[in-house]
């Protein structure tokens, strides 16, 4: 069961975990990313490529389902303006085995960072704006899976 959501609204990680746990695998891994504060950041503006986003996320999920034996995968990514502390992304997996669940969750996040068409713009407290740049460590993490 693959569930992909791209939306402006917030999500409830607890509900997503419950839905995956109900599939009966016994092992549910979950990652939530939020807007990290500190410095001069006020908010992030999340832009995406609507015609491509779901397709790209589904490809990642399909690949994870090939690599590990999973009962379910949920990927949620928010778009629009998100304040410091707000949730941005959720990746969750359900498997019979904890390592499979955790590894697949890690894989999904690594791929999402490099092949899902989202762009973050920082909006600072003084009103200035800055497009976030790709991090080499994210590229390295994604390629380390040898897809």
């Amino acid at each position: 069961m693959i569930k992909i959501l791209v939306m402006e609204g917030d999500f409830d990680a607890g509900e997503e975990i419950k839905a995956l746990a109900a599939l009966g695998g016994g092992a549910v891994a979950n990652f939530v990313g939020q807007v990290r504060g500190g410095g001069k950041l006020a908010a992030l503006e999340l832009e995406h490529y609507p015609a491509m986003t779901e397709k790209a996320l589904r490809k990642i999920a399909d690949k994870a389902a090939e690599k590990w034996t999973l009962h379910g995968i949920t990927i949620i990514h928010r778009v629009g303006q998100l304040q410091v502390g707000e949730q941005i992304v959720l990746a969750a997996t359900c498997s019979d085995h904890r390592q499979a669940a955790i590894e697949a969750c890690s894989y999904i996040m690594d791929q999402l960072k490099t092949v899902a068409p989202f762009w973050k713009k920082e909006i600072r407290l003084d009103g200035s704006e800055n497009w976030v740049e790709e991090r080499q460590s994210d590229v390295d993490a994604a390629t380390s899976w040898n897809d």
Partner: protein
Amino acid sequence: MPHQLDIVYFSWVKERLGRAQETVVCPETVHTIGELIGSLKASDALYQDVFSDLKKLRFALDQDFVGLDAPLGNAKELAIFPPVTGG
């Protein structure tokens, strides 16, 4: 029949070009994304500026990531954008 192609832009590419999308007619000599970009750059200083460093750009043809040497074929939509930064 000339190949009409929709181009969509995102992030700073969109902002610097001042447009989110446009439709271009590919010259008959243009077969790849790289050649199309070259032709756009030759036509207008703004493209020349925004597309000056191709290493900072990524491309998707009909919503699939491709490289500069990808043939345009009969694609309907080309997307040009910087490396993604979601998650």
